[in-house]
């Protein structure tokens, strides 16, 4: 996929995107991978620890094999680099996510941000943009933060 989007439509849980090069289909898995990449890129570049964390999180959340999650992540990375408009289009998949999904996604994003040992302001800004874009409510974000702190700092 390498050109401006000509049309897009939601069919069930899949987003069908047409460009001059052909038609591609995206689902919630791709949306999650793309969203994590968008946030990890917030600091300027994806760090290896962030890449490894994204692979693990996608693998766990979607019950995928390691090679599958790696392939999904790199596909999302490449397609988003080729087509900067794609990220905005993927927002159309947000209605296919449940509140529970959204909370899990917010939690995954927080874990990716912290993966390289630094919580960059720019990454938190991207996080805020992303949660707004896919309609994650402040309450859901709070629950994700609670879970994040409970998992990473259980003594608090």
């Amino acid at each position, binding site marked *: 996929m390498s050109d401006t989007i000509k049309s897009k439509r939601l069919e069930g849980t899949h987003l069908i995107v047409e460009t001059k090069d052909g038609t591609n289909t995206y689902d919630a898995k791709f949306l999650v991978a793309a969203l994590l990449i968008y946030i990890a890129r917030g600091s300027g*570049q*994806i760090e290896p620890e962030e890449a490894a964390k994204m692979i693990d999180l996608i693998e766990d959340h979607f019950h995928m094999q390691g090679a599958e999650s790696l392939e999904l992540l790199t596909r999302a990375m*490449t397609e988003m680099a080729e087509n900067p408009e794609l990220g905005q289009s993927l927002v159309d998949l947000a209605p296919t996510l449940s509140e529970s999904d959204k909370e899990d996604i917010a939690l995954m994003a927080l874990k990716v941000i912290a993966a390289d040992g630094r919580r960059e302001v720019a990454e938190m800004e991207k996080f805020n943009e992303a949660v707004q874009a896919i309609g994650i409510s402040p309450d859901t974000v709070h629950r994700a933060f609670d879970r994040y702190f409970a998992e990473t700092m259980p003594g608090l």
Partner: protein
Amino acid sequence: MGGAAVSDDGWILRPATAADIVALMDWFRSKEDVEIWGGPEFVYPFTLETFRRDIRWERINSYSLFDPRGTFAAFGQLYLRKQRVHLARLVVAPTMRRRGVGKRLIGRLMAVGRSLYASSEYSLFVFRGNVSALECYRSLGFEVVDYPQDMPHADVCYFLTRPHELEEK
């Protein structure tokens, strides 16, 4: 993958990992970027599979350089080519350019190469249009020499070598 991690001044060079390759892929956002780095045959748009194949991930020693904050700063490969330590696919992260990172990378790769292989020279190829890289290599003592007859792209690339003994001077 040969060669131990080398650390100096807080900068660390270590053998590249699979996660490094994923991060590395994100440094290339256009066909031109990839061609200057990996050559005209490098497939773009790439997939993980084509990227790994085109950098010969399974066959060549690959290294990642990290700055004192732990930021992935540069990547490079080395192997023995015609009795020389050959440096290949050298690249500095887009966010880290023009800060001398390339020189740090090459210095550390040369040290690893010396420890791995019995040779008296280093070599590398560079695209003629990659002026900043060419300047960097020349500043480190590399000189343009006759292009190997058995290699393609003589019309668009230079071949440079440098003796090891410059390090003692």
